[in-house]
């Protein structure tokens, strides 16, 4: 069709991509900055200047070495990892549900993981001593991860008929499962003793306080592949915005894409909740802010969300551990205080929410 050679105008539309590329670079710088500041911040009074000078002279006191290597560094790594995981999980879920307010918390991964953790805290003492010793301090994270995974699989079974996953059914089933998990959690909370209640409260609000290389080793193998490989799903996620049928017409294997997204979200969210408890709103706020500033193209949205989520969570963690120092605020409180107003703002701006 030779006559189809009319306009050749490249000017429009390219600006957004340029902005997104610029944003990527800016976010890398931001993440580095936040990381450095975070390493120099803490209750121990070991500042950036001290670290720098002592590091140059090689005279870091043994106490400070422990603080740096065994407390601050793993905590920073954990914050970066969990923040990225939460933000990317949110972006993936929103792409799958074609709804900017979807979040792993909504589809039951969070509720399932929470139930697992509560079960471990309250009933963990009933386990035969041999098994309990095997798990050691990992019982709660492992139970949370299994709970999140189980909830996702159950949800997927409920929402899938004959190889077709209904997003509407999945959302509704997620709400029902969440309510059920909440009820069982309530019963367990009712049964719990005072010490267990303290654990529960702390865990349900989320915290990076227990961060160490061991926990990092638990979460890393599950989260890192999701962060690295999710950009490969960008084209499919973009096409999915047109609807499942039209994505398929464009050549996307839609059912396989959906399964991959669910698997990725279960892994990343389950692992995050398992090691850091319930940290809300990162998954909703980060992708939304990025969509406003640089557009919804998942090619940029996913890596940018990972970087911004990482920076935000490390920043929130700095607030959490300094604002009431030497005590610590659960980080979930910080993210909720910052994130809930943004969530409401999104809700107000979007009068006609996209139907499912």
């Amino acid at each position: 069709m030779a006559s189809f050679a009319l306009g050749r105008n490249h000017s429009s539309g390219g600006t957004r991509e340029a902005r997104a590329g610029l944003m990527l670079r800016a976010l890398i710088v931001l993440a580095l900055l936040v990381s450095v500041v975070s390493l120099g911040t803490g209750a121990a009074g070991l500042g950036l200047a001290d670290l720098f000078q002592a590091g140059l002279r090689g005279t870091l006191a043994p106490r400070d070495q422990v603080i740096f290597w065994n407390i601050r560094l793993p905590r920073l790594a954990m914050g970066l990892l969990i923040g990225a995981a939460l933000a990317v999980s949110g972006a993936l879920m929103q792409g799958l549900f074609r709804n900017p307010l979807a979040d792993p918390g909504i589809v039951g991964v969070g509720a399932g993981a929470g139930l697992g953790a509560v079960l471990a805290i309250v009933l963990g003492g009933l386990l035969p001593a041999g098994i309990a010793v095997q798990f050691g301090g990992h019982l709660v994270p492992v139970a949370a991860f299994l709970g999140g995974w189980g909830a996702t699989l159950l949800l997927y079974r409920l929402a899938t008929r004959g190889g077709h996953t209904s997003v509407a059914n999945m959302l509704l089933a997620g709400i029902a499962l969440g309510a059920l998990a909440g009820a069982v959690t309530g019963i367990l909370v009712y049964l719990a003793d005072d010490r267990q209640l303290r654990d529960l409260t702390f865990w349900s609000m989320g915290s990076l306080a227990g961060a160490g290389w061991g926990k990092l080793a638990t979460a890393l193998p599950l989260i890192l592949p999701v962060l690295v490989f999710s950009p490969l799903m960008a084209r499919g996620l973009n096409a999915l915005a047109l609807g499942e049928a039209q994505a398929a017409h464009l050549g996307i294997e839609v059912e396989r894409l959906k399964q991959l997204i669910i698997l990725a979200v279960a892994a990343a969210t389950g692992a995050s909740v398992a090691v850091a408890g319930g940290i809300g709103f990162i998954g909703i706020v980060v992708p939304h802010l990025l969509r406003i500033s640089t557009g919804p193209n998942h090619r940029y949205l996913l890596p940018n969300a990972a970087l911004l989520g990482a920076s935000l969570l490390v920043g929130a963690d700095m607030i959490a551990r300094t604002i009431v120092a030497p005590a610590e605020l659960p980080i979930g409180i910080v993210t909720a205080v910052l994130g809930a107003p943004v969530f409401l703002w999104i809700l107000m701006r979007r009068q006609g929410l996209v139907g499912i």
Partner: protein
Amino acid sequence: MLQLEHVSITLGRREVLRDVSLSARAGTLTAIVGPNGSGKTTLLRAITGEIAYQGKITLNGLDVARAKAWQLAAVRAVMAQETQLAFPFTVLEVVRLGLSMGENAGAQDLPQRALAEVDLLHHGARNYQDLSGGERQRVQLARALVQVWNPVAAAGARWLFLDEPVASLDLGHQVQVMRLARRFADAGGGVVAVMHDLNLSAMFCDHLALLADGGLIAAGPPESVLTDALLSTAYNCTIRTNQLPNAGPWLLPQAVAC
């Protein structure tokens, strides 16, 4: 070549289409016409591989029910009746979705050229969600065009499947879009469109397939399908066909008898 053999479709417990056999050659423009609820869109959704059916549908020899999504996507593009977007993509970003991984992937100027074809050249940076219904349809047509830009590829003819491509367009753009479809067919591609407007169908299409009540009651060139008897049966309304000089059949419903 598009071939349908004894295609029946049941949605829920209702048989929407019964034993439809039909074929369309590349290089032609075929309209599926018929009253509301006669199964036009359902038939098109079967042809595009979107819903399950009994019987057999092949496109360029490819079994539609068994083909992989990417195999079909290389051969045909589909434009739905209405497309809502979940996120605020720009017009150009939407049209770019039509760029496949294959031969068109490097042709970065195709989206702009396709936008020019649908008269939206300078609207690439606009937010798709802010467009009117008719503009959205034209953007979706541009996206479909990008997907099958060359009407004849190395592997054979390409196809455009359009569900009511002109339903929400003004008169000028209706003619523009039909001309576009006509040119695609004249260049060797195949076009199958669900149409409401019988007059536009008669003006531009080589073949019409008339559906009524889930069955195919006539198929062939416009003169043989748009007859008073067939149309009056299909639409349950007395319809009189006229002949215009230098044009095909032209028809008006006889309001009194409806």
